[in-house]
């Protein structure tokens, strides 16, 4: 309890932590929302390829300009991201290589160049290159208020564009051909939403890093899909999950020295994903298992009820009682008959008679006739 109170205290009054948490929240919101569209368009992996492809852009623009301001580095990242996407599209369209393979090619080639230039830069001892390798795994602690403002500005614009073209993006994601038939330029919308995804990825690189950024695109969307069947709810929920993971990651990393924020954010969102995959109603694994079990029991109960009915038909009244033993002879698993009878008794469909016998109630007769 105490630690939690302290954490919130720190969140409110610790300047650095507050900045980091805000930055993480912004990237979670933006990546969550746009990641939801990416997932629905089966482009989750594209997010991964794009974030890796950003690294050479960051390094190269620093080599060229010698400037390390976040806007300049983001610009470099965005250019490399965009170039990577265009190359993936071009490779897929003009060769026989399928999209997954072309994403793999671009991811590794771009990332390879990025790493090479980065290590070369470090060895050469160029002045001021020190912060660059934080783009690899992210270093949220280095976020300044100015960085967060830049992130929020670009992210805000991206989200605004998403809202403005909501209807069109929905059409693009669900039925591209139909949208084209309506006269919308689907190719252009495709490029636009991919550019928005570039923005979402680029603003998160400094905090989470190129290696883990794709998790912030994929994971919140996967978790959100589990809980809702409405696009608007899914996108909103995905943002909430992203923000939640961002803030919790920042808080947890502040608990001890040496805990890196980026990986902790990713671990938090992973925890949300695991929980959602297991427990979400209708889609969760645990939920489904419970439903299956319930249906199986229901089916068994119905059959016991019908057995009682058939046996009573041999007598002058349908409420003629029989022993559990007699019912058991009609079932494959006699042991389960008893628990079914108990359930049916709780539902007032059967009632015990003379201690060890069971008879259908009027409600039970009606229910049994439904299942004949």
């Amino acid at each position, binding site marked *: 309890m105490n630690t939690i109170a302290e954490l919130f205290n720190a969140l409110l009054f610790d300047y650095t932590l507050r900045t980091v948490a805000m930055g993480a929240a912004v990237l979670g919101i933006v990546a969550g929302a746009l990641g939801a569209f990416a997932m629905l368009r089966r482009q989750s992996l594209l997010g991964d390829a794009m974030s890796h492809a950003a690294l050479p852009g960051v390094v190269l623009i620093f080599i060229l300009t010698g400037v390390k301001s976040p806007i300049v580095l983001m610009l470099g990242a965005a250019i490399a991201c965009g170039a990577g996407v265009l190359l993936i599209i071009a490779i897929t369209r003009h060769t026989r290589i*399928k999209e997954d393979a072309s994403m793999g090619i671009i991811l590794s080639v771009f990332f390879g160049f990025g790493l090479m230039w980065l290590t070369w830069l470090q060895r050469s001892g160029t002045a001021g290159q020190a912060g660059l390798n934080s783009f690899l795994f992210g270093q949220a602690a280095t976020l300044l208020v100015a960085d967060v403002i830049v992130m929020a500005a670009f992210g805000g614009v991206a989200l605004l564009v998403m809202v403005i073209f909501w209807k069109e993006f929905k059409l693009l994601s669900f039925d591209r*051909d139909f949208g084209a*038939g309506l006269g919308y330029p689907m190719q252009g919308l495709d490029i636009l939403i991919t550019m928005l995804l570039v923005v979402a990825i680029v603003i998160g690189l400094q905090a989470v890093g190129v290696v883990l950024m794709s998790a912030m695109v994929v994971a919140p969307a996967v978790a959100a899909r589990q809980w809702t069947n409405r696009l608007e709810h899914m996108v909103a929920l995905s943002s909430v999950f992203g923000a939640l993971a961002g803030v919790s990651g920042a808080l947890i990393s502040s608990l001890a020295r040496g805990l890196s924020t980026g990986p902790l954010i990713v671990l938090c969102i992973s925890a949300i994903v695991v929980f959602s995959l297991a427990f979400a109603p209708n889609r969760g694994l645990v939920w489904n298992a419970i439903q299956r079990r319930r249906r199986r029991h229901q089916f068994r109960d119905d059959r016991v009820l019908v057995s009682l009915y058939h046996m009573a038909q041999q007598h002058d009244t349908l409420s003629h009682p029989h022993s559990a033993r007699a019912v058991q002879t009609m079932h494959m698993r006699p042991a389960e008959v008893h628990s079914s009878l108990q359930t049916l008794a709780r539902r007032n469909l059967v009632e015990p008679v003379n201690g060890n016998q069971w008879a259908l109630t009027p409600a039970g007769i009606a229910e049994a006739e439904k299942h004949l």
Partner: protein
Amino acid sequence: MNAATNSTNTTSKTTNKTTEVTRDQPSALAGVTPPPTHVTAHDTAHDTAQAIGNDTVPDARAIEVTDLTVAYGERPVLWDVDVHVPQGTLMAIVGPNGAGKTTLIKAMLGLIPVAAGQVLIYGQPYSEQRHLVGYVPQRGSVDWDFPTSVLDVVTMGRYGALGWLRRVRNSDRELAMQALYKVGMQDFADRQISQLSGGQQQRTFLARALVQDAQVYLMDEPFQGVDATTERAIVQLLKELRAAGKTVLVVHHDLQTVPEYFDWVTLLNVRRIAGGPVDEVFTDENLRLTYGGRVNFLTRSPQPAPETDVPAPHNVASDKTAPER
């Protein structure tokens, strides 16, 4: 309807001049349904033509596809195809797998690049008449686990009329609801689309096309994977569309039902083998030419239509737009 169909010769290519005069034909049926305002709005010059009525202007070409050629790389998928459909006709497009039926529809809609040819809708290029054309894609072309409801999907049919930036209004949802009533899906409006059966998915797509309030409908296998009840419901719907003066082009697989469901038929196998009124062109001979002469198709057998395997285009680029599923 027959007045229009009988006197139209499919094989001849009429000049655009003739169709120009008659492209307001839907309004001739104003007694049946109110004429769609967008047809007449931009074309008041032809008001007199409507007054003459269907019988005196028999050559109302709703769809004119001329010399359409589509190629994936070196390989032609459609070669020099002509399809002329008079207004108020239900036309089936039949042919073996890989014959280019879906490609034909997609090319007509401008979804895939064409190597040659033109598509006229009521005498004007398709690009200018887009709002007159409704499209029912193959059911399998979308992800039915998309997080959205039936009503939402049907409302998408209104997006074209809405245009950029405008939000969906309640009146749009009401139109969508009416369309759901027409296909008997009103009770499923709020259902998540992944919970639909194949037939219900198909009817959802049909409702979405109805909401478009088009004059010409292009439907890609609306009967695929639906049960007998749904099939009857769809046929009923097609006949209502025809009665309202709409023109419907349907990619169809079941040869047995062609004479029963459709007025006209186009037999397609990369080239157009034959096209015209069913009783004229739907012959054993033409079917043999289309399918490669393996089976007697018109002998009433309980089996579904035979599917001849024509090798599908094999290069990578074509996989995404392969003519058949």
